[in-house]
């Protein structure tokens, strides 16, 4: 029976969500390919991972080695190329994460296997694999067809839902092929993002506050805004005056002298829409503005506008978002 390899991603003693997303996301495809699913687990002291993965795959293929204690693309590449050559899986899936992208291109090149990156879905067409990936900042879905099997792909995180299929995997331990020292790449340390540091340019949803919020150092004001942001899973950004007042750090400022952002949702609360602000956010997919002044220029770039006091609107929004989520 053919096999689909799914590379297990873990960091500092924890399995990453992408692993489960890939394992459950490829089930239909594996069925159509008439293949079983093998979770490929590399590491050191990883028995607890084996336990956690048992119900998610048909087989768990484990390679243990001291050199695999921390992620190292060079070590992973050697092990994986060995396993792929030996077992010839029809498809290898790797997370489209910084780990995965450090590894997949070189591995595919070494093995001469076609690679589609950042995929969000798959189809089979006349027996050939077609990967779906987004282009033009997410505006277009492109279908990429592979010429020949075997295939390799990296999967965007959260592209698939992780749904436990309740399997019971067979566990196979394979000897490590790593005989030599890994010399080119070395693991040094994990560098933690400083506490509170948020990269607003990467956020999918942003709640942005302007002078209309009044005194943002006021606990009450802050908590009203933060509650909405939490419900939305959004990060908080702002206009320049909020930074000037020292209420939010400089890296939260959107605009020509701050950051340029393109989230799916940009919710502007009490921001007038000065050109220097708008230039940093007008490319957002959906812009919603709350401002009590109907003439505020922000409404010329907004897709949806609410003309009212934001302190009336925000609690209602928070409630509605909560309801919508509860109902799904």
């Amino acid at each position, binding site marked *: 029976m053919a096999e689909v390899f799914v590379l297990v991603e873990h960091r500092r003693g924890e399995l990453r969500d992408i692993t489960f997303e890939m394992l459950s996301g490829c089930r239909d495809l594996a069925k159509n390919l008439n293949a079983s699913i093998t979770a490929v687990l590399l590491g050191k002291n990883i028995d607890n991972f084996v336990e956690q993965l048992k119900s998610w795959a048909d087989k768990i293929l484990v390679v243990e080695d001291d050199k695999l204690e921390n992620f190292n693309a060079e070590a992973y590449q050697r092990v994986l190329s060995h396993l792929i050559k030996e077992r010839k899986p029809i498809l290898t899936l790797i997370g489209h994460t910084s780990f995965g992208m450090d590894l997949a291109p070189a591995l595919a090149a070494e093995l001469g296997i076609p690679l589609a990156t950042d995929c969000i879905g798959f189809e089979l067409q006349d027996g050939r694999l077609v990967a779906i990936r987004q282009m033009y900042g997410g505006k277009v879905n492109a279908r990429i067809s592979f010429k020949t099997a075997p295939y390799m792909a990296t999967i965007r995180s959260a592209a698939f839902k992780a749904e436990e299929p309740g399997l019971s995997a067979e566990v196979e331990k394979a000897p490590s092929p790593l005989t030599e020292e890994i010399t080119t790449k070395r693991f040094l340390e994990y560098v933690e993002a400083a506490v509170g540091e948020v990269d607003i340019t990467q956020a999918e949803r942003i709640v942005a506050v302007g002078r209309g919020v009044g005194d943002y150092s006021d606990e009450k004001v802050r908590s009203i805004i933060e509650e909405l942001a939490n419900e939305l899973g959004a990060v908080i950004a702002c206009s*320049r*005056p909020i930074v000037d007042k020292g209420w939010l750090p400089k890296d939260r400022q959107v605009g*020509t*002298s*701050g950051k340029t952002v393109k989230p799916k949702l940009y919710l502007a609360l009490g921001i007038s829409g000065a*050109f220097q602000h708008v*230039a940093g956010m007008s490319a957002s997919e959906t812009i919603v503005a709350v401002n009590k002044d109907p003439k505020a*220029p922000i409404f010329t770039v907004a897709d949806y506008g609410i003309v009212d006091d934001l302190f009336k609107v925000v609690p209602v929004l928070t409630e509605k978002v909560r309801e919508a989520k509860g109902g799904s």
Partner: protein
Amino acid sequence: METIDGESFGEKYDLFVCLQCGKCTGSCPLSMRSQLSPRKHVREALLFDNEVVLDKEFLWDCTTCATCRLRCPRDLQPVEVIIGMRSILIEEAKVPATVQEALESTFKNGNPWGRAPSKRDEWAAELSLKSASEGAEYLYYVGCTPAYDPRVQNVAKSLVRVFKAAGVDFAILGNEEKCCGNEIRRMGEVGLFEMLMEDNVEIFENYGVERIVTSSPHCYNVFKNEYEGLKAEVFHYTQLLCEKLDNGLLKLTKELKKKVIYQDPCFLGKQNKIFEEPRKLISSIPGVELLEYDREKERSVCCEGGGGRMWAEATATGERTAETRVKEAVALGAEIIAVACPFCMLTFEDAVKMTGYEGKIEVKDISELLVEAIE
């Protein structure tokens, strides 16, 4: 230490005669709020190699107001040394992301604001203005900020009304207009500046332009003093309108009972010695009482909008100079701060908000005051 074109800084800017008197740093509007110190950088440029420039993020604090140049007893150009150092930072790609975006947009779109070139003339859509191909006595060079920033578009629109009222025969380039490059050169991007200069000179030449009038002192400065091969005569709009006022062609009839204070733009005042024309225009409006700052004309304080600062916050901390100026204006009893530069307009409007004087004092361009006086 070597400049971008291979000469040493000392030779290129004649730094050997520097007295280290410190008048430049003493007069610099940023030196109190940043590590920026023109005197020190002049010394460093003489003594060390390129290494010394790297990791000096505060070099982006300089507004290129040129106060340091004005004060130097040796006629040196500390501001040019700083621009030269920025060129090295650009070569090394040690550039704030926002500056990089502005430069890239200027290369791609012909403006630093990230806007499409096809939208440059939108502000004039309903004004039916002559285009340069039809020929006119003056080419009105609008500039990037008046063309794209909705607040400053009103300056361009007001100017058009005043030009028409004064019978000025003018045309615009519309979407063919490109960034003048004044800020680009000051951000250290010499290559891009030269490209813009060549393109613009060619466009002006093609349309046989003999006289250019600008909204912005920045465009005026670069055309007047830095463009090579430009044959046209260059005017800031305050000069042209003052002439029309003297000839009786611009008639200011409506009363405006306001106390108005005037902010000298560095690129008009300090750098080009145009002090009187803007003042004459303002004080000729019936009813206006023109107030003066204590620090005015050559001693005026920079608004912090120049030298690429529109796209770089850099490292300066503490109260912005525009905020200090707004507070001074309020204390002097002014009701309107009159500006004659798009960047002053933006820095001052922001400063009025930050100081909490909204509703108490307004920021208006001189062109906007003139519109009120003619209609």
